[in-house]
């Protein structure tokens, strides 16, 4: 059952009625029941694997010793590797259980936190099962921490019409982003990325730019829907996005994009790696090669490479994802290693970060760096990605026939101009909204009804039907 389907609407309605009718101390049980029901309806067989993760982690980590931790990691990562990467080992015809990559990270995060004494082991199996299976987040996150979530899930939730309204508004925003913006851009992006060899540079640049927006609208659209549903249930979910495309440097971008995954990697992989013995030795060896480099910088080199390659592999074992991970590892390393030099350069040339022109330049530069990496993320193969890079640099011309050719993937000549106008207006609207919110987080709140009504009308009239899957669902 997709979060954007009519059956789900009824599912949510029934849940809300029962949820606010039962005693407040029993609300979490209703949530658990509906969460398991949601998962069962998605794929009845796969609930077995969810249960294996829940039971193994819960019982093993009641006594958080190293052998139990290892076994938990072995079971959970083993299942993930079998399902996600089995195809690369010749295992075909397997269905990856819904949200497996996401809930595996939650179980591993819980196990590691228990082992590292950052949290107390859970004493209630049903509480733990709810934490892992909570339906708005199981499909594609956010990857909430046990500490941050369990209190929120199990506390009493009195009915409040403000929550229903706020939640509803957030859902409408999510539907708009997913069905109107991402849905419409997907036609263009899919057409071009399926066979990039046939397109000129201008078309490829447009497709890359559109893909960046599509990915954001799709993923953040899902988050808006998930957070909106949770808000209706009076539950606060961790946010995954904070207007990432307005970031002024790449580190900031990764603090604002897929926040919970990056937090997970920082907490569970980056920080332990930085303080590990192997890294100490490796950075010492690196220090001999670069004697002038700062110690702190050297110690982040190998953990950064490790984290980014792991992040790439988490998305998939295909070469494009590994390439994507390596690309961002290099970009992050360059950014970290040149930080002090750039500081001096900026000082020498009188660069003022507060200057609006410089802010725009930095934002555009970051966006371009991200778009360059996203080419690999979306391309069908590395060779396709390199074709796109090559053609962008060698076959980009701006003349009437190239502009006309760039319109072709919008559809046949009968609709292309209208489609590009509508998409252009929608993207401009999204950009202006994000920009305004960046400077004033309370913007538009005074006209919420008008804004929600407008978004809903546009979604009804311009939404692409039949879009039930979200892009990150496949990870």
């Amino acid at each position, binding site marked *: 059952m997709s979060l954007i389907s*009519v059956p789900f609407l009824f599912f949510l309605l029934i849940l809300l009625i029962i949820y606010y009718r039962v005693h407040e101390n029993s609300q979490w049980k209703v949530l658990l029941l509906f969460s398991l029901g949601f998962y069962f309806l998605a794929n009845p067989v796969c609930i077995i694997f969810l249960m294996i993760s829940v039971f193994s982690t819960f019982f093993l980590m009641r006594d958080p010793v190293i052998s139990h931790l290892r076994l938990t990691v072995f079971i959970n990562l083993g299942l993930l590797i079998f399902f996600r990467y089995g195809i690369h080992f010749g295992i075909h015809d397997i269905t990856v259980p819904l949200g497996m990559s996401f809930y595996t990270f939650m179980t591993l995060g819980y196990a590691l936190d228990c082992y590292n004494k950052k949290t107390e082991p859970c004493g209630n199996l049903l509480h733990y099962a709810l934490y892992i299976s909570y339906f708005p987040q199981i499909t594609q996150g956010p990857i909430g921490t046990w500490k941050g979530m369990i209190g929120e899930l199990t506390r009493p939730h009195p009915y409040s*019409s403000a929550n229903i*309204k706020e939640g*509803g508004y957030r859902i409408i925003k999510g539907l708009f982003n997913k069905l109107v913006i991402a849905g419409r851009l997907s036609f263009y992006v899919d057409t071009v990325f399926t*066979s990039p060899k*046939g397109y000129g540079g201008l078309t490829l640049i447009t497709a890359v730019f559109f893909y960046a927006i599509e990915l954001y609208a799709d993923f953040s659209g899902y988050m808006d829907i998930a957070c909106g549903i949770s808000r209706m249930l009076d539950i606060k979910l961790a946010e995954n996005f904070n207007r990432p495309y307005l970031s002024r440097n790449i580190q900031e971008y990764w603090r604002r994009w897929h926040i919970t995954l990056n937090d997970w990697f920082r907490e569970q992989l980056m920080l332990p790696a930085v303080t590990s013995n192997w890294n100490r030795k490796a950075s010492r060896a690196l220090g001999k090669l670069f004697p002038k480099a700062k110690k702190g910088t050297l110690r982040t080199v190998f953990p950064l490479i490790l984290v980014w390659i792991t992040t790439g592999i988490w998305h998939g074992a295909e070469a494009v994802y590994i390439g994507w991970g390596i690309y961002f590892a290099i970009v992050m390393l360059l950014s970290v290693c040149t930080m002090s030099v750039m500081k001096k350069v900026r000082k020498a040339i009188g660069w003022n970060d507060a200057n609006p022109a410089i802010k725009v330049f930095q934002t555009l530069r970051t966006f371009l760096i991200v778009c360059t990496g996203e080419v690999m993320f979306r391309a069908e193969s590395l060779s396709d990605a390199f074709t796109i890079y090559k053609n962008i640099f060698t076959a980009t011309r701006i003349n009437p*026939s190239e502009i*006309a050719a760039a319109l072709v993937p919008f*559809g*046949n*000549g*009968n*609709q292309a*101009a*209208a*489609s590009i*106008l*509508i998409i252009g207006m929608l993207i401009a609207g999204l950009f202006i909204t994000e920009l305004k919110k960046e400077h004033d987080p309370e913007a538009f709140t005074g006209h919420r*009804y008008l804004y*929600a*009504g407008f978004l*809903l*009308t546009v979604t*009804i*009239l*311009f*939404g*692409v*039907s*039949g879009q039930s899957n979200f892009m990150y669902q496949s990870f």
Partner: protein
Amino acid sequence: MKKTIITLITVVIISCVIISAKNLFSMDIPIGNRGIRAAINAGDLDILFIGSSTFRCNIDMPTMDEAYDGRVYDISYGGNQLVAASIQYDEIKSRSANKYDLIVFELNPMMLTEKVALSDSRVIWDLSWDGKKKLWEKLSSSGNTDSSVLYEYFVTSGMDDLFTYPVTEPFYSTRYYKGAKTDETPSPGPEVLENAEFDISGETLVPAQEEAVIELLEKCRRDGQAFIFLECPHYYRLQEDPTYQKYLDYYLDLLDRNNAACILAGDVSFDDHEAAYFEDMNHMSAEGRRLYTKKLIKLLKGPEAP
């Protein structure tokens, strides 16, 4: 809660008004140089073409104008299906008393293998409410529809055109003349055409499209309407493709059994190996379009034609 309900009701009312307006009145919105309404406004004609983008790109209307004193028009839609062509024929007949000396339907054998679908949202824009309903019945009876197709058909299709009409209509008008393309599309060159990938080997016959051909023939005969089927030349790689030839034979057999006349690509002496004449496998470049139209006119008018 009161405000929420008022907002929701307002959204529903506004949406319903816009959707109804689009479905009921889109065909009356003035569209210059293309579509059914513009074709009807052109009055009695010597030749009316009904087909897909192949007609739109391959028939040069200024050349046709010269030969027929302007009494020609082309109704064409992207990927126009035989099922839709049959309904378009009904529309031009039911919405006017215009006389057409000859209606030329497109003969593209691969049309017989197209799954019944809405290929071009302009079809919806141009049809009357009855036409829309009829086409929907055809789509749904082919079993190729679900709720999302229904939504697309009655709600979203043509909405972009409606909202951008004041800006896009003047732009479109410059790109069409009597339903056909006016732009000077060049050939991408032999290298591109020789390497362009296409694979039609897996295509299978769709009975609904075959039935639409028979329906079209019956309607024309019922109305005493003269008609002919026209196969435009394709780039030789497609023209000589075994699957293409297989369905061409099938199509010809179908027309033969029903005593329907046709003009085949081979009947017009046109070099389908000349890359300069083609934009892609199906569509001609401006150079090819003009040359082909001249040769077609000679054939349509007879050997004495200038």
